[in-house]
């Protein structure tokens, strides 16, 4: 699979994750969201989580498991956001998988 970003082809795996993590730009995230079966227009709430995940990866070099993500978001952005209900409302395919994909991270370890 591949994404077309302004004429540039970005390689993704069969599940839509980036082949090369360095290919990520905000435009990649936008294009991935719009390419969903039900296209998603990313808003500020989505970006808050996507940016959080990119910082997490920068610091720890892993995509967090969803349980860990939920806890970490709660600590950083408050309990009203650090809960499954909020995160699933933004990323209905699963905040671990879907948000990590848009953030250009690998699929979280332990995710099947």
């Amino acid at each position, binding site marked *: 699979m591949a994404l077309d970003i302004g004429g540039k082809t970005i390689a993704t795996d069969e599940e839509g994750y980036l082949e090369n993590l360095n290919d990520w730009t905000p435009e990649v995230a936008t294009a991935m969201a719009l390419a969903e079966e039900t296209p998603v227009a990313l808003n500020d709430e989505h970006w808050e989580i996507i940016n959080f995940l990119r910082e997490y990866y920068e*610091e*720890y*070099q*892993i995509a*967090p*498991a969803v*349980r*860990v993500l939920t*806890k*970490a978001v709660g600590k950083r952005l408050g309990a009203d956001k650090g809960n499954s209900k909020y995160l699933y409302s933004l990323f209905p395919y699963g905040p671990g998988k879907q948000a990590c994909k848009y953030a250009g991270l690998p699929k979280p*370890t*332990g995710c099947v």
Partner: protein
Amino acid sequence: MAKKFLYLNRKAPYGSVYALESLEVVLIAAAFEQEVSLAFLDDGVYQIAKGQNPKAIGMKNFSPTYNALGDYGITKMYVERESLAERGLTEDDLMPIVYEDEDDDYAEKPSVQVVSRMEMAQIMAEQDVTFSF
């Protein structure tokens, strides 16, 4: 019921894939809410050494990931004192890995415990499951 899992790490981080594979398995086990602890012996002590930079050999430095283990509920990382000494290392050469204790107002506490070979044998004997990497 949660079982006690101990992951023994005996090899240097970059010469083989053992260290990284162990870390991946540890993350998976922790996601299943088991009681997971890690042990570092022999050349495995280098896995949590400070200041790793494997860029020149084209490898990713995965040592920052050990700092995330606290968030996965992994709060015990045993390091064998004799293995450190045999390599001219001390606890100061190891990354200061911490976890936040939820039962103590999220106070940061050290995850790394340097133990003697005798104590390590005792720790191994207490486990339900031991994996050696």
